[in-house]
């Protein structure tokens, strides 16, 4: 339940991350030289990044658009997933009815449903949000449902012996128990969400985003931009993951701290 290795100091962690990136970029450069690859086949990471940097004024609003779709879709998917899981755990018949449908929903190829979604909901934000939410909600439902199902029955019995009201038992015992699994689901969702936004833009879009830019760069053989934007999307994905992790660490302090932060209640201290 708890993963508590000895925490590395942040400077070491950042150092390791930088080293990992350097390793990837190094291997990338070595591959270009070793296989004698032309820039229109595989540009160097440096020129890919340059392509993005030089075009940043044009790319910034597109990036914002894609980030917006990713973020709103992510929150939407997480909310739907969480509420669905809670309702399913409270009402067993709903769970039996809905669970097979959930699994089926994930078997539908996302790329394939993008087109029908555009037909149904037009060229605006909505189909993109639906695709992102579609991807994000599933790991959330599965994890939260698991968390709710694995609450120690003895703890529930203890609550009963204490004459807990059903609502308080839910708020004080069941709900907090969903937090850790919820964040496991959100971390999976965070990395996939960007992909969802890009797929949504690929089908048809009235508003330009990084996905649409990727398509046009691809068709105009601007290979450096294709790789540059791909790198940019990767960075967005990683940052989303880190953001979820940061929120997790403040929301579940008991997972990694020995004591609660004192909320200056001197009254508690009195013997």
């Amino acid at each position, binding site marked *: 339940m708890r993963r508590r290795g000895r925490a590395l100091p942040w400077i070491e962690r950042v150092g390791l991350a930088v080293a990992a990136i350097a390793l990837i970029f190094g291997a990338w450069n070595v591959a270009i030289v070793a296989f004698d690859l032309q820039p229109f086949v595989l540009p160097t990471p440096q020129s890919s990044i340059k392509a993005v940097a030089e075009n940043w004024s044009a790319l910034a609003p597109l990036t914002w658009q894609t980030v917006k779709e990713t973020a709103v879709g992510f929150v939407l998917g997480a909310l739907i997933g969480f509420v669905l899981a809670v309702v399913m755990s409270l009402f067993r018949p709903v769970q039996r009815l809905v669970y097979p449908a959930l699994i089926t929903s994930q078997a539908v190829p996302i790329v394939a449903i993008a087109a029908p979604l555009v037909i149904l909901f037009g060229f605006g934000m909505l189909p993109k949000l639906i695709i992102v939410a579609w991807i994000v909600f599933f790991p959330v439902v599965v994890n939260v449902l698991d968390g709710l199902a694995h609450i*120690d029955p003895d703890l529930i019995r203890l609550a009963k012996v204490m004459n807990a009201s059903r609502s308080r038992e839910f708020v004080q015992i069941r709900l907090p128990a969903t937090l850790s699994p919820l964040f496991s689901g959100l971390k999976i969702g965070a990395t996939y969400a960007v992909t969802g936004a890009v797929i949504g833009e690929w089908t048809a879009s009235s508003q330009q985003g990084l996905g649409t830019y990727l398509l046009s760069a691809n068709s105009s053989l601007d290979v450096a931009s294709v790789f540059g934007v791909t790198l940019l999307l990767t960075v967005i994905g990683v940052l989303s993951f880190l953001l979820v992790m940061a929120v997790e660490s403040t929301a579940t302090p008991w997972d990694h701290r020995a004591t609660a932060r004192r909320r200056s209640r001197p*009254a508690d201290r009195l013997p």
Partner: protein
Amino acid sequence: MRQDVTRACEEGGRVTEPKLVVDAVSCTFDATPVLAEVDLTLEQGEFVSIVGPSGCGKSTLFNIVSGLVRPTSGRVSLDGRDVTGRTGQVGYMLQKDLLVPWRTVIGNIVLGAALTRGATRADRHEAARLATRYGLGEFLDHYPHALSGGMRQRVALMRTLALKADVLLLDEPFGALDSQTRLDMQLWLLSVCEDLNATILFVTHDVDEAIFLSDRVAVMTGRPGSIAADIPIELPRPRGIDTLTTPEFTELKRRALSLLHRPAFERSAP
């Protein structure tokens, strides 16, 4: 000393009401009798242990007294009130500490209040006082995962005490601890009991523990469970480590062990 109090009340002409009465309680699960008729009476302030092999129905008896399980027949009364099948009447503690990981020591101690009416500042204050008094003062803001097994069980007992129930049910509370820690905890529990006049029903499979802590030891035998003997433990209080090596203690232990193991011999005889 406790028996003296009871006697004094009786001599005063008014027979005191027993605190807890388990009256001809039996229990059957799926046509399997788990408890034959069990009778047990606890006076106010009495510490009674139930010893018996695993599967003898100790835990079922506990669940019945706590109100979680309805007996097939018989009744449980508290201060003369029928509380059969009613929860929220007694304190309850298990071998598993069942501390809530997201609550601090204080937060866990006030769990009972939080689950019923919401924990107030006064509850937290009282919890801090209890915890400080019984050796948890440095850990008020700790999360359970940062505590040792013994400390966690102390918190669990404080949580049980904070319920302010007159009767505490402790189901092998030290069963998962190593023997060193267990002895520390027993000594600690003795000191807690001296302060509070709580009536305690204690389940264990450890005969030493039962004799060391109790005013009476009820020996239970299994399938279906019933109380084979009720041994009064007249060892003087306060008790300490020395109590464990007195001839009286050994004699009591011999009696309890022979009672516990007699049925097994009888069964194996032709």
